[in-house]
Each structure stands twice: as C-alpha cells, then as structure tokens.
C-alpha cells in the first residue's frame, strides 16, 4: 500500500509525520519503504539518518544533433511547444532546462538528425534506516524540473507492504507526481487561515486525481476550528490531531525522531500506524 503524506502549504509537518510513521511501522515489524519525494528540499534523511548503499545520477532525455544531417529547416523549433529548441546559425540550440522530454522534435526531424541524450538533473539515493528502506531524490541546484525525479523516487520499492511517500508542498506538477497512484493521501494541515486555504486546494487536487484522502491536524491547538469544520463538511476523515509541543518542535529542530523522545506524540503515530495496518490487512494487499 502506498501512502502519500502531503499538504498544500509548506512547513505543516509532512516530514515529521512521514518519517515517524515509517519508523513506527518498521518497528511494528512491517516491511516499509520511506520515499522522500520532496526533491527540491529533501529533509527525511536528517531524521532517519539512513546508511546509503547506492547513489545514482538521475537523467532526463533531451535532444541533441547527431552527425551532419541537420539542414537547419527549423521544423523542430516549430514543433516544440516548450521553446526548448531553437534553429540558429545553420544548426539548432537546445535549452535542456526548458525541455519536457516529449520526443516530438526527434520524431519530427525529416533528416533524422536529432537523438535523445541523457541530461542529469539530480541524484537518486537509496539505503536503509534501521529496518526501513530509504529512498530520496536530490534535485541539482539550478535544475527547474522536479517532477521526473519525483516520479523516479516514487517508482522505487513498489512491492513492499507500506511505502510512505513524503510529498513536496503545493498542488502543481511535482506534488501531483508524488501523490499520483497512491492508495491513500494523508493531508497534514494546520488549523490556521493559511492552512485552511491550502487544504482546500489539496483536497481538490486529490479528488480530481481520484485518490482517497484522510487528514491529520498538526499544531492543533494553535489556531481555530475552521479546518475541522471544513473536513467535516467535505467528509474527509480526521485521523489524528497533534498539539503544539515545544518538545516536538525541538526534536524536529535537532533532527531527532519525535516518536523516540516524546511519548504522547509516539502514541498518536502508533494509532495512525495501527489504522493503516488494519486497512492493509482487510484489503488483503
């Protein structure tokens, strides 16, 4: 079962929940993979402190002129809707940062002068953190396109009992890539007007993708009741509430798993893990 931990707003506690949930499930004896898909700012490794066994470079495919065949006809430039290839000075110039790897230019070249070559955009790191498998993606600084690396991260360890995806914030392509194909999205929200506004967008995103949603409210006592009212009106089950606690905040700040140091928090996460176990058992997957 794949569970994505997501939120529209940044800094709501996605990584706090995802890392502790993965650790708790592993401690309960389940086969778990933690997948950090927040490739622009992956922080899960700061808490799970994995031992990496492999780091491979991730590449997207971009066009390149091969040989002498290019007649500088400009058809590739016309065909590219992303303005990533420009016919210039009797040849073409490719802007890998703009390319979406769609392959249209290569297929449309009458001289067959274009080939696709790899363009490195980040690293895919794998290892283990205790009994849990650990994967994260680290987008190269300066690379604009996060989504292909997010997909690469989410494609790892699809066969384990639980894969916990730590999603990037937002509702655009990288966030969609992280929740797409999940069996369940757990939305981490805060009970503030910001939190409510961004929660509404996240719910809309998940619903348009047809994914089941549950919610968890973090820093539940620092705000108002509007998020609870919204969840109830929308029929989104509220799985748990985590109160603001300086001890949790300090554990987060120091890169300590809060489940190991704050018992009240550990019992909340244990209850969430128990719910997932029950669901996974009853669905038979």
């Amino acid at each position, binding site marked *: 079962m794949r569970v994505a931990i997501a939120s529209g*707003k940044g800094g709501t506690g996605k990584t706090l929940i995802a890392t502790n949930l993965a650790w708790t499930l592993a401690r309960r004896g389940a086969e778990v993979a933690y997948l950090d898909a927040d490739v622009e700012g992956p922080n899960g490794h700061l808490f799970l402190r994995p031992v990496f066994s492999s780091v491979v470079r991730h590449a997207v495919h971009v066009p390149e002129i091969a040989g002498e065949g290019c007649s500088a006809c400009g058809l590739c430039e016309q065909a590219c809707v992303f303005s990533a290839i420009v016919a210039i000075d009797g040849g073409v110039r490719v802007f890998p940062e703009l390319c979406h790897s769609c392959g249209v230019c290569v297929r449309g070249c009458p001289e067959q002068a274009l080939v696709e070559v790899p363009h490195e955009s980040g690293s895919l790191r794998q290892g283990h953190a205790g009994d849990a498998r650990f994967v994260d993606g680290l987008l190269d600084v300066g690379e604009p396109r996060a989504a292909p690396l997010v997909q690469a991260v989410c494609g790892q360890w699809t066969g384990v009992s639980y894969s916990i995806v730590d999603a990037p914030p937002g509702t655009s392509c990288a966030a969609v890539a992280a929740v797409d194909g999940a069996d369940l999205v757990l939305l981490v929200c805060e009970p503030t007007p910001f939190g409510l506004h961004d929660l509404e967008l996240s719910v809309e995103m998940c619903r348009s993708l047809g994914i089941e949603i549950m919610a968890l409210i973090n820093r539940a006592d620092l705000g108002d009741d509007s998020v609870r009212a919204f969840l109830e009106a929308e029929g989104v089950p509220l799985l748990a509430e985590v109160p603001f606690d300086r001890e949790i905040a300090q554990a987060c700040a120091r890169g300590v798993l809060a489940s190991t140091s704050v018992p009240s928090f550990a019992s909340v996460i244990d209850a969430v893990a128990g719910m997932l176990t029950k669901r996974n058992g009853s669905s038979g997957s």
Partner: protein
Amino acid sequence: VREIAVISGKGGTGKTSLTAAFVQLSPRCLAVDADVDAANLALLLPGEDGPRRAFLEGRRAVIDPRRCSVCGACSEVCRFGAIRRTSHGFESDPLHCEGCGACAQVCAEGAVGFRENQAGVWRVRTTSWGSLIHARLAVAQGNSGKLVAHLRREAKELAQRQGDQLLLLDGPPGIGCAVHATITGVDYVVVVTEPTESGAHDLARALDLVAQFDIPAGVILNKADLNPEGADLVEQAARARGVPMLGRVPFDPRLPRALAAAQTGLEIEGTREPIQAAWDTLCRRVWGKEQGDDEMAVPRQPDCREACGTCQPEGMARHRRQP
C-alpha cells in the same frame, strides 16, 4: 522599480507573514504573491479585489472519438501517461497532458485536436498599503513558473503606471521552476529560514541557487530563539556563502492567532521591533540608506525580456551564470 523576492527553500518558515509585514512597512510598494500553488498573501492584506482574469497558457489534447480508429499509436508515444484506453477508444487526461503534440504527430486519422488551457486566474487587489497581485493556479497545472512570470510582467506595468518604487514578491518554497521564475532578474533576494537542521539544509540550497543567478541576497532567521544549535547551523550556512544576516525574529506563540485575525505581527510588541529592524537592514542593503534613494547599494539587474528564465531561452542565458 526595484524588485525584491522573498523565498525560503523550506516551506512554512514565515515568508508570507514577513512579506505582508514588509508591505505594510513600505511606502509605495506593489506586492505580488508568486506562490501561486498556495497563495496566502491576500489573507493578510485585506482589500477590494478587481475583476478575475484568466491566465491561458498552453494547450491540451482532445481525441475525437468519431475519427479515432483505436490503433493506440498515441498512447504509445505519450511520455506523460496522459492517454488512456476507455471502453470506447482512447481519451487524453487533461491533468497529465502537457500539450506537447506527440499524439497528434503520430495519429494517422487526424483525430487529435487541441483546446486552449486555462492554467489559472489572477486579479489585482487594492489594499490600504498599495496594490496586491495574486493568483490561483488551476489544480494540477505544471506551469506555475509561467504564471509567476505573467504576474511579474503585469506587476511591472502596473507599478510603472502607479509610480510604485518597489515590487515585493512572496515566493514559493523549494528551488524548482517557480522559484527560478520568481528570482530571475530581481534586484535582491531575501531568504527566510528557521533554526532547524531542515531549515539550514534547504537554506543552503536556496542560497546556492541565488548565487547561480548572480543576485545579492540576505537571510532572515525566523522563530530565531526556538533552537540555538539550529540557529548556529543557519548562520554558518549564510556565513560560508558570504551572505549577510538581515535579522532575527523570535518565535511568538501569539502569532498564529494574530495571523488568523489578518494581523502580521507588527501589532505585537516584541515581534514588531525585530521585524522593523530586519526591514531597515534590508532597505539599507538595497537602497543604501532608506527606501526611496535613487542610488542603489546593489547594482540594478538587467531587464529580462520575459522576466522568467524558464520560458525564455534568451532570458535564461543572459541571467544565469553557468554552474
């Protein structure tokens, strides 16, 4: 018009509340909410919204079932998994389609057409502190960078018409395309972070990105008193990159409730003073003395044709220092 972008690397560090406070402190400022995925600045700057305007960008494939011969060639070439088999042929899913046209290229029946894509809506709000341009990206859109670039073009025009001196951009988290579109060609970048390992880690990546764009930057440490070791990590990350600290704002548990009442922290004694101090330091960095001086302490960034490296190759090439 000078442009200052506020970004953070890590989300939830307090970009939006600090940006709103800066808008309120600045005379003749035009604010832009460039976090179009999760735009929250309008919640702190109440006012009167102008008409909603559509942002049309790109296209989406539409397969005509009457012409489709169900050969499946389109679904084989689609790199985005957007074309799916249904009970009555093939369909393109607009949430996954990027409008590249590969399907139309291979369709022997000419069954693939395109429709214009509405990628979002935007509007101008009039507030007591000046204008605010804010937007909402349509759900699951891949082009937040282009919407940001569009908002910046509109904002520049409006600022020139109104005689605003400053464009203040509330940026998105991360270091990807929407952040590139936010910082390309701005005069100064403020990175707001928090005293945690995660904050320091993501700060370092954000500062490295800003350095690639060759833009001067400063750091504001928010919730500064929550964790001394984290604060050290943040200050080290900034120092190692030769980036100055602009200010330190302490954590105040009253702030979330203040924000809920559309306050920015300037109303709270003990929070107002450090925010004001950070703003003054920022102004000295950008304008030399205080806002309004024509002589800038930092050189003016050259104008980018499209203000967005991600959609204009020339703009990208001009602004980016090769890593």
